[in-house]
């Protein structure tokens, strides 16, 4: 599985490198190194397929935590989409509240207070005190 994925990735890189000049041995172009690396990856992927009989199969690996993983992944995607639109404090407060209340089933008031306090505290520490600019969003939050 992993070997096949690496082979597929190498083929994609080789295909995408068509648009870039390969150059020559004397004067390598921008595609020279990526193509060389993609060929190496192709070789490693093929070797993994051939030699990888003892490696774990996707289905044999335990995936018991997948629900949590999907929820966390979704929260991160939400944060990436909302960070500059809603601002740091609002985004982080909503993300934390969702994780604590919905995913971890903590009390509503506890989740709300902790989420807001964390978002406001982190903003105060990094943006106000350490002067790391964080997004405020359309509403200035």
């Amino acid at each position: 599985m992993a070997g096949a994925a690496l082979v597929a990735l190498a083929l994609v890189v080789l295909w995408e490198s068509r648009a870039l000049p390969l150059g020559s041995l004397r004067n390598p172009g921008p595609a020279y190194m990526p193509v060389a690396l993609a060929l190496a990856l192709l070789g490693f992927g093929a070797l993994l397929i051939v030699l990888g009989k003892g490696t774990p199969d996707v289905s044999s690996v335990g995936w018991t935590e997948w629900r949590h993983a999907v929820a966390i992944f979704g929260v991160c995607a939400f944060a990436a989409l909302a960070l500059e639109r809603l601002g740091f404090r609002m985004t982080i407060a909503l993300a934390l509240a969702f994780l604590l209340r919905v995913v971890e089933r903590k009390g509503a008031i506890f989740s709300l207070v902790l989420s807001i306090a964390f978002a406001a505290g982190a903003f105060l520490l990094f943006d106000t005190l350490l002067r790391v600019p964080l997004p405020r969003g359309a509403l200035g939050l």
Partner: protein
Amino acid sequence: MAETLHNLVLGFSIALSPPILLYAFVGCVVGTLVGVLPGVGPLAGISLLLPATFGLDATRAIVMLAGIYYGAMYGGSTTSILMRIPGEAASVMTCIDGYAMARKGRAGAALAIAAVGSYVAGTASVVGLMLLAPPLALFALRFGPPEYFALLVLGLLVLAYMSSGSMLRALAMATLGLLLGMIGIDQMTGYFRYSYGVVELGDGIGVVPVAVGLFGLAEILATAGLPTPPQVLRPALRELLPTRQEWRDSAWPIARGTVLGFLIGIVPGSAHIISSFVSYGVERRLSKRPEEFGQGAVAGVAGPESANNSATSGAFVPMLALGVPSGPIPAVMLAAMMVHGVSPGPLLIREQPGLFWGFIASMYVGNLVLLILNLPLVGVFVNILRVPYPILYPSILAFCILGVYAVNGSVVDVWIMLLMGALGYLLRKLGFETAPIVLGVVLAPMIEMALRQSLAMSDGQYAIFLTRPISATLLGVGLVLITLGLKPLVTRSLDWRARLALAEKGDEQR
């Protein structure tokens, strides 16, 4: 020698100034917290806290980040001894005998021996760094592009060889990292490569989102849904003093761990992890009572803890003297230095002696701060471990998002972290090591530039790498490593890397 002492005095005059002392102290405290928290290792910790140093000058920022690095190495031992959970990967070996000692009521002694061993090793290895880095930097002035290319290739090969598990898998991951490092504007021709119209990708993929994704987010994805960690054993302060016999049993393991750790630290690879494994093996082999290992042997704590702290300083030698990171953590430190306008390499010591020697002196100070700080405050750090993980991980996740966004003020970096987190999660499940990816991303532009410059110098002749003695030697060593890596495939036996992988896996399952 007189010059070294003179420079060290200059370094101490900088390191003992109140602002630098303060930042070393803050770095050590934050680093210890990072080491204590399961899931936030030194790599993710330094990456996340990099933006917090943007407002500082280069010396203060680097002193603080270095404090975080060795603070995390100290802190990792606390969770290993009290919870049997390694705060960071290098503490895996400490779990075995440290936790066994804790169950026997010797948690305080185990923590004290780990702290003293770390202090001795940390301080002694800084002496090694101080003596070795300047002559190495002088030697490196002879390096041209072919030598750098050979050195960087060797670095990746050594990392792959030193990784636990299969060398083939590690090489595949390093190649994947190098390919990721190809994204962005080609430095020599100005072509956009694989950026698909995303302007932010023009500068390439940053090491911070890659490191935080592969190490921070992937860890959270993999562990958040697991059952809650075991109970924390709480040591009483009065138990902190080891007995005379325990001191006697730990003296030689500390000395051996220090030397081993420093030597392994210089070599590219995940040195701090490997050094603790090697030290544990050496101590068990040399012990008169090997049957005590696994049941609470003092040497099983003293050796690995000294070794992993010594390796931390050793890893700074090639980074500061050659500008070549020897593993993922020095790679992030290198990126952090570059953010602050400092270019580590042969000319650093000559051109910025204040920064270099101030950094060295601050490491002496930092080690002392950690020794004074950690033992009395162990109860405070233990309390942090009592925060249930379902409450802790959302906060760590929020810091991941904050830290990654703040480096460039770009949401694209958050997306990269997200993708790397998913990739790291899958790779971890399938038994791949992700450290070579991080090193590949950092080394890719350097390797490509060195290769193309070398070929331009030689009119396209690859023989240039073999006709120059230094590069030929370095590539020869690389070839030997590949041959050694292939040996288990031929003999169908388990080599030391396979055994290390099994040990790590076994510890995860326990």
